[in-house]
């Protein structure tokens, strides 16, 4: 029974959100049925559609994880966007500037570059928090802008594609590109694996326990011999690294180069998805697929039913609202015991 309720809630939330969305479309004189039909058939109705949905979900899963892991350790990482950009830029550089390596060496190196520079961006905020007590929300907001500017400078300066007028790097070599597997994006499977690993680490390992203890009660963690500073550093390093890897996967698997506009907004969607999943690494996956599917199918919906893709943002906000607000929960009497508290104030 409890199991039934655990999936009933999001389903009802989705249904209500879609109903309200339909009303909005009606107000605009469009045909909601036709819109939804095209939305679903293009997101999930064909293997190409599924492939696109999963491709869109990939960076969202990873950035959602990056937020989740920090939330678990009691940190609110708004800096995923910047970490992701750092990773995208570094992996792009490694992808085009390093020559003469076979795929199985070059690709991992490029991925590593992305991960490392993402982690570096993350750990700056972590170190400032751990050693100087500067709140991570400020530093990560600042770092987002900083990385964006730095990326703009590099992509239009030292890393610019020769002869190109735009701010973008050369295309990465084929030896650094993530190949497709049976028409499905390989990155997605990496993302799923990462989510499962993250889940497993928190569920089963001492490291996960350490981070989580710090997140839930810093003082008790200190009493129990867990270094709070180290946990902050580690979680920001891992969060940043994941975000960087997400950027690298996008760069090496989808975009093919660093071009700033191609990564906009991924980090911020990650925050929403992490909150939707209530800081549970596995719950990030369905959230990301929902986001990815709907965002990816927006064009089709407009094509088929003439509905502005903005409606998708609206529906997603409503989903988040109905999943998290205790309205439906009360109605179907879901008992949410032992739920991770995702966030608190800025004070901790």
């Amino acid at each position, binding site marked *: 029974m409890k199991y039934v309720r655990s999936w009933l809630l999001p389903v009802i939330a989705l249904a209500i959100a879609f109903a309200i969305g339909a009303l909005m479309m009606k107000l605009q004189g469009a045909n909601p049925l036709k819109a939804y039909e095209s939305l679903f058939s293009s997101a999930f109705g064909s293997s190409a559609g599924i492939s696109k949905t999963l491709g869109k979900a990939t960076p969202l899963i990873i950035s959602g994880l990056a937020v989740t892991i920090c939330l678990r350790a009691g940190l609110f990482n708004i800096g995923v966007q910047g970490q992701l950009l750092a990773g995208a830029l570094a992996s792009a550089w490694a992808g085009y500037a390093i020559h003469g390596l076979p795929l199985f060496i070059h690709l991992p190196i490029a991925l590593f570059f992305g991960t490392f520079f993402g982690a570096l961006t993350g750990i700056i905020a972590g170190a400032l928090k751990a050693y100087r007590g500067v709140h991570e929300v400020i*530093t990560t907001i600042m770092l987002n802008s900083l990385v964006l500017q730095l990326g703009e400078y590099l992509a239009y300066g030292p890393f610019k594609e020769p002869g190109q007028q735009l701010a973008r790097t050369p295309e990465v070599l084929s030896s650094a590109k993530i190949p497709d597997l049976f028409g499905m994006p390989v990155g997605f499977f990496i993302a799923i694996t990462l989510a499962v690993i993250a889940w497993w680490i928190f569920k089963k390992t001492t490291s996960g326990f350490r981070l989580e203890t710090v997140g839930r009660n810093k003082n008790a963690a200190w009493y129990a011999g867990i270094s709070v500073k180290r946990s902050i550093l580690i979680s920001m390093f891992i969060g940043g690294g994941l975000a960087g890897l997400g950027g690298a996967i996008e760069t090496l698997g989808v975009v093919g180069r660093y071009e700033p506009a191609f990564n906009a907004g991924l980090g911020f969607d990650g925050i929403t998805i992490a909150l939707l999943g209530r800081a549970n690494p596995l719950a990030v996956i369905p959230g990301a697929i929902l986001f990815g599917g709907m965002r990816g199918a927006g064009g089709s919906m407009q094509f088929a039913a003439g509905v502005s893709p903005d409606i998708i943002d609206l529906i997603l906000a409503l989903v*988040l609202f109905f999943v998290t*607000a*205790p309205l439906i929960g009360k109605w179907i009497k879901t008992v949410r015991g032992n739920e991770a508290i995702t*966030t*608190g*104030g*800025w004070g901790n």
Partner: protein
Amino acid sequence: MIKKYLGSRWSPFVATFSVILFFYLKDALATTSVVATSITFGLPLAMAAMVGIMCERTGIVNIGIEGTLLVSSFIGFFVASVSGNLLVGLFAAVCMGAVSGLLLALLSVTWKMDQIIAGTIINILATGLTSFFYKQGHTLPSTFPEIDIPGLSAIPFFGPVLFMHGPLTFLGFFLILVLWVALYFTPWGLRSRSVGEHPGSADTAGVSVVRMRYLNVTIAGAFGGLTGAYLTLELVGSWDRGFSAGRGFTALALMIFGRWNPLGALAAALFFGVAQAITNQLMITEVVTIPQQFTNMLPYVLTILILAISAGKVRAPAAEGQPYEKESA
């Protein structure tokens, strides 16, 4: 004691004023312009930061400021253009802001939802709604005009900097000062702060925590509405999708930077404004040619550095982010 005070708090101001004086003697026009413009850049940030301060001082985290700005500027613009009356638009924007505050209060006080999630909902709802319902072709009948206070505005430097602004700029500054006074010198302020620090103590003193939180979050929302109205009805004169352009998030950082103190946040916001105006001025005069990206990084780098050096624990209101359970022991 005085020495310590000077050393810790006032030295940045002294430094700022000496720098301004130095440049003023070199180039009066440009310096006046930079300082005046930094108010234009900084004021909306400061006003948005006040929204955060008012909420957080009563223990409610508000990351939905961005959404409030967006939706209230949208409503303000449309009501003003449809009604043809700026004041009606202003009123509508303030009401819309209050409604968004009320929604936050409902979610976080009554429903005890995670406050970060509540704010996120407001943000993405605002983005979706404004973008979906935006319709081109409306224009404002006019904008709030600049008021040059007679006499005072003729004073060199101080005139343009302090006395030549639109009515909402004056109102914004005035309300920031009012908020500071109210927060520290009135019963309302004492009660608000106690609700944010230790709701139990307020409750046992007969101050209703729920009522206080509702009241303050709603007023804060209305203030956010005023900020939105300022942006569209006074500063710009038009509206477009994504109009607030991230100011609500920057404001959050400024609120923390200013240590939850209205004057602190105002100073932080003006610092940001100055940095932005200087960045522009460097490009305008082309005296120094460094890549624009680096000058743009300036405020962010400086903020991080200043915080890292001055460090000290920034202490947030203690009860922030937690719903108040009246009946817990």
